[in-house]
């Protein structure tokens, strides 16, 4: 799968070689093409002799095979191999050409002989035999199938089935339910891909008091307590069963207050700063009569929980940030220019179009707002309440960003996953509605979670040493939203999940077992990827907790004590940490680093606000990857997240280039360093007990964190051929914007808003 061909000393071109015109003939498959099914998955319809379109300008590369619609995915099975394909990240749950139904954004059928096309929804009729099926995916892919040689009736049936099954009428029709049920009842039990899904990850799910207790302890929030009044969702339908409140608020008070908050959502504690300030999120208070009084009481309680009785500041998110529709509009515009518009047409005004989409402007607004909240907590030592009408959208993004900037724990893989679990899943972000899994209400759809990932990417891009994970991880995480197997992204709140599980089990006439319906959790990455592939999540630049390092000539394990933790949080230059080297070994490093930061050392003409001063002073110091991080927010600092937005666009793929080649080089070096450290440990133990010294160095490569491994010391060979700027994804066959009926597809779309609108096209063709 990962060809490691030796380099030949010849000149090579990485453009596809000039093809000789060879007509591919229809070859009836020799072996029977069978769908690979998961537990609970059933085939709905299938059609043979289908062509999957690969190249934009010719059909030479097209693949022949069978198109199958199941209750989980659209699957294309073929014996052909992709000639142009150099690499494709393999997902254990999906075949190379599969699209989960939840990932289907729009289904378009075309009959080019009759000049007809139609967008298909659920339960619709189709009055022509389609010659082509185009599936627009939520992850930006555009996949095309042609039925020139296929049975017209079965082709039509498959198209209708894809349309129907990608518009489930009820959440319980999402495949995860059937899957979880069948898996529980099948002989393999709770094992999938040979992996125990019940055991799995050490990521705290925050569905039990102990997870919260640990977090309270870790942050030293002694004046806060876990509250269980919402057990059984008795108080608020959208709050988790357990959450954290000020010690001074008794359960009785909380119960009384809850009625006045939107959705009965009491204030939720997020985090405590070592200086005692707390971050709290809160819904709006509905009753204007109660508002002042209640506000007062909450603030007093939070102040009481502050060791220095500091003030409480409020940050009204609805007033200062774009709303969810704005964000959706920006996202749709960006998608339009990235993948829908013909490449050449959008090329000329690219920068202006990017600006016009406003996506980066919004990314900047969220980062900026989060940085301001950081200033209140860190610079003003004040507790902060994030207030949003329902406290289920914007505050998820802001609280996550604030925590990532302030606390290095959330920049580790486990920390980040726990953060998403807490601030999104448990806090009741409406994943079901925002992902629009049921495709019922487009107005509710909004890519807030992707917005968070993009903001995190910007931070990661600015401070690559501060994060344990990579952009590949962030991309794969966003893709997992469209695999409806993980409970993480399927529900609007924990209660909805519990209810649907109960109902589903009841419908199976098995009341006793409703606790047994356990969805896998996305954090158990073994479900989707091999251990080797998961190594792509690890950043070679991250040196964090538990990673051994050299300091003063001895191998030490880096552990953050409580003391250094708080000092780094205050942004003081910390002890040798991250890069762990003596200043003398690289004399210019510090001075250079300092000079590379924006230099605000002199006052500017405009009067400076305290927060500006705070940011300026922070930016003049070298950033500590394990301390406070603040984003750099000038337009040139914010970039388009190309791996996510452009990975399927064949025209933008840089063969053997892109940031991945630097990543490759860094990985080899990090791998070598790990090997040396392992060797050092062995030598160390060998000097005390000489018997072990002869153990050959074999164990290292298996335990390495790195995906790319050094084959030899000082490995300076060029990056492998399969590396492209899209790695580990491949645009081949995933973005087929071929013109139809001789018209560029964009022309065909003009009139339709952005995607094809069902009504306009339906009226044209019916």
């Amino acid at each position: 799968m990962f060809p490691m061909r030796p380099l030949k000393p010849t000149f090579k071109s990485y453009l596809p070689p000039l093809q000789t015109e060879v007509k591919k003939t229809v070859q009836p498959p020799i072996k029977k093409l069978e769908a690979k099914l998961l537990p609970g998955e059933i085939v709905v319809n299938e059609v043979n002799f289908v062509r999957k379109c690969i190249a934009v300008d010719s059909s030479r590369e097209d693949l022949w095979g069978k198109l199958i619609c199941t209750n989980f995915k659209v699957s294309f099975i073929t014996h052909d191999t992709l000639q142009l394909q150099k690499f494709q990240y393999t997902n254990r749950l999906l075949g190379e050409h599969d699209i989960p139904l939840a990932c289907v954004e729009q289904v378009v059928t075309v009959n080019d002989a009759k000049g007809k096309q139609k967008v298909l929804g659920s339960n619709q009729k189709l009055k022509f035999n389609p010659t082509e099926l185009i599936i627009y995916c939520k992850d930006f892919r555009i996949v095309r199938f042609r039925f020139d040689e296929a049975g017209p009736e079965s082709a039509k049936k498959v198209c209708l089935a894809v349309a129907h099954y990608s518009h489930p009428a009820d959440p319980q029709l999402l495949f995860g339910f059937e899957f979880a049920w069948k898996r529980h009842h099948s002989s393999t039990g709770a094992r999938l891909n040979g992996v125990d899904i019940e055991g799995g990850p050490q990521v705290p799910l925050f569905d039990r008091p102990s997870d919260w207790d640990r977090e309270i302890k870790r942050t030293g929030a002694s004046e806060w307590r876990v509250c269980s009044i919402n057990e059984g969702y008795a108080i608020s339908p959208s709050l988790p069963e357990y959450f954290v409140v000020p010690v001074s608020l008794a359960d009785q008070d909380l119960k009384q207050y809850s009625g006045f908050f939107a959705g009965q959502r009491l204030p939720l504690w997020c985090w405590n700063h070592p200086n005692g300030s707390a971050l709290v999120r809160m819904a709006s208070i509905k009753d204007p009569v109660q508002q002042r009084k209640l506000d007062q009481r909450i603030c007093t309680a939070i102040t009481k929980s502050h060791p220095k009785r500091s003030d409480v500041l409020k940050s009204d998110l609805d007033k200062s940030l774009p709303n969810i529709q704005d964000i959706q509009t920006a996202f749709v515009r960006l998608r339009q220019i990235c993948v829908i518009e013909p490449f050449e047409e959008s090329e000329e005004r690219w920068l202006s179009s990017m600006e016009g989409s406003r996506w980066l402007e919004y990314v900047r607004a969220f980062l900026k707002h989060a940085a301001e909240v950081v200033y209140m907590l860190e610079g003003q030592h004040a507790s902060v309440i994030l207030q949003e009408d329902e406290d289920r959208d914007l505050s998820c993004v802001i609280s996550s960003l604030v925590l990532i900037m302030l606390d290095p724990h959330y920049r580790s893989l486990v920390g980040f996953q726990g953060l998403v679990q807490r601030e999104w899943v448990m806090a009741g972000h409406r994943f079901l509605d925002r992902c629009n899994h049921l495709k019922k209400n487009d107005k509710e759809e909004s890519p807030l979670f992707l917005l968070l990932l993009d903001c995190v990417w910007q931070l990661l891009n600015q401070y690559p040493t501060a994060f344990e994970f990579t952009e590949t991880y962030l991309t794969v995480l966003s893709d997992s939203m469209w695999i409806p197997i993980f409970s993480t992204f399927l529900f609007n709140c924990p209660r909805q999940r519990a209810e649907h599980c109960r109902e589903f089990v009841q419908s199976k006439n098995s009341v006793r077992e409703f606790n047994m319906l356990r969805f896998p959790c996305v954090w158990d990455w073994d479900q989707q990827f091999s251990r080797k592939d998961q190594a792509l999540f690890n950043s070679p630049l991250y040196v964090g907790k538990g990673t051994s390092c050299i300091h003063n000539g001895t191998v030490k394990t880096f552990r953050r004590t409580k003391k250094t933790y708080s000092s780094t949080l205050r942004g003081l230059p910390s002890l040798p940490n991250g890069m762990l080297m003596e200043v003398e070994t690289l004399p210019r490093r510090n001075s250079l680093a300092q000079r590379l930061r924006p230099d605000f050392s002199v006052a500017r003409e405009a009067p400076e606000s305290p927060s500006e001063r705070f940011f300026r002073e922070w930016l003049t110091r070298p950033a500590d990857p394990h301390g406070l991080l603040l984003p750099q927010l000038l337009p040139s600092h914010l970039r388009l997240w190309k791996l996510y937005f452009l990975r399927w666009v064949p025209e933008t793929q840089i063969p053997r280039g892109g940031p991945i080649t630097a990543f490759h080089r860094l990985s080899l070096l990090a791998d070598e360093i790990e090997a040396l450290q392992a060797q050092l440990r062995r030598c160390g133990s060998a000097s005390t007990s000489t018997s072990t010294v002869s153990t050959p160095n074999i164990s290292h490569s298996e335990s390495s964190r790195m995906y790319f491994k050094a084959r030899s010391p000082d490995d300076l060979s060029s990056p492998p051929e399969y590396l492209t700027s899209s790695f580990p994804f491949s645009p081949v066959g995933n973005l087929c914007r071929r013109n139809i009926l001789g018209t560029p597809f964009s022309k065909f779309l003009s009139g339709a808003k952005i995607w094809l609108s069902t009504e306009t096209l339906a009226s044209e063709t019916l």
Partner: protein
Amino acid sequence: TLPRPSAPQPGDTRSHVEWCKQLIAATISSQISGSVPPPDSGDDANGYRSDSDAERAPLTLALRDGNKQAQMEEAPRVPGETIKTIAKDVMYICPFTGAVSGTLTVTDYKLYFKSLERDPPFVLDVNLGVISRLETISLQIGENNRGIEIVCKDMRNPRFAYKEEQSKLEIFETLTKYAFPLSNDLPLFAFLYKETFPEDGWKVYDPVAEYKRQGLPNESWTISKINSSYEVCDTYPALLVVPTSIKDEELRKVASFRAKHRIPVLSWIHPESQATIVRCSQPLVGPTDRRCKEDERYLQTILDANAQSHKLTIFDARQNSVADTNKAKDGGYESESFYPNVELNFLDIPNIHVMRESLRKLKEVVYPSIDEARWLSAVDSTHWLEYIRLLLAGAVRVADKLESGKTSVVVHCSDGWDRTAQLTSLAMLMLDSYYRTLRGFQVLLEKEWISFGHRFAARVGHGDENHANSERSPLFVQFVDCVWQMMRQFPSAFEFNELFLITILDHLYSCLFGTFLYNSEQERVNKEVHGKTVSLWSYMNSQVEDFTNPFYVNYENHVIYPVASLRHLELWVSYYVRWNPRMRPQMPVHQHLKELLVLRTELQKKVEELQRDVASSRSISSSSEHGPSPSHTSTPLYTTV
């Protein structure tokens, strides 16, 4: 009348190293963090100040009044540099950090402003070569009622204000005189600069050696000395590679049919297919469709020299319409009907005037302040990146024709010294990994740009006050920008780093080195540039550490094709917007890589030590033990970085 600083003696390596360090410190801060000439910070003053006392002494003398403050604010100098005037209480109006008062020194090489008002001291250091135009401005800031605006070629316009007093009248005059020495019958500073380096940069490029590296001469191609006294073409180098079978007489005929006598000559040959890149100027077809049998046969010979293809592709860098206009003006392009087996393509790249205008607009967008809300569309409106895209796309077509099509390529524009040089050198950079090394890139510049007569003097206007001259154009800057774009897309394919490119661009203007002076090899020979000036490569090759890309891996024999799409092209903020302290990019990743490299070296050392200890303790304690010998027990020791 001012005493000179004591220049390091030739051969005095210690002072040389010291000086290099200072220069490097200055370069790094000016180019990466933008502080030597940067209007806003003075963190490099220390680098200079830590100078030996020997240099301090004459400086003290220079200030006869013994004013301590002014003493501290005086300028460090490079060997051969002379102070021409010093003015105290001058105000620098920094667009980023506000006005600051200090001492302004003008030498025959630079303008140096230093203020101790701020901590660290504020320093602005502008070499005079970078000045495009000097203007007096009227303003009133406190007592200061005189002002100068210094319009620079490198995207900034520093402004000074001072009191109208007798002594300060000379600031403007002195600046004008030394900023534009050629207009004032003075030598360029490169001829005064006295510095020796361990390496002689003039030896970097030896045409015979470079052609030999390419496998030339061979059966079909020969190195001709027909132009050894620049008689055939006064803007071409002395040595030319031409088809073996073409006689000198024919060459002269071809020369008379090509604009400026710039005949088709070989730039690069593919080591496998023998397909070639050939460069020339436009044919003088004229409105009457003149023909030249020798020229037609000449191109046929070039085609025949490559057995792999039956076609010859001509890339005319211009727009078709412009080429037609040129035809009316006695120029033109090859007609496919007179040149059988030739395929003509136009690359639609606008001319030097369009590029000059584009960079002018870009300067307006990036200096002094930027519009944060409309940043992307403002950059878009300059079309600068669009032209970068056109150039890269054209070069990719040239390279692909050679590599995939195995077809020989002829590239020309009108005169064959602007767009032609851009295209051939970019294509060569894609095709030949040698040119992506530190040395190779220098050879590429020396060959395709300097020796083949890119009109550096005219395009840059070294020492010339005529700023409005329409010959000026940032073609070389545009080329270096393309190289930077390629580096962005292939972070590990180039041996040199961003600082290397910025340093080259800074010395394109500085007139400190002789490398980019004059328009042609002939002029340089006449002016004895090699004997009387220092090569930029002497300096850069003495400090390769600083210019090396730590990500570099061996892409040998690999063609790299950058994606010429605006989705990947970026504004080179750390060059064009480097004066704005707020726009500086983040800490580059290569810094982290360097740290890892150090860590690895340390670990390697540690492992070696431990293994040595283990081995020795073992040999003492138990010589009878049947364990494997120490050399077997350890994994191979890695060589050092």
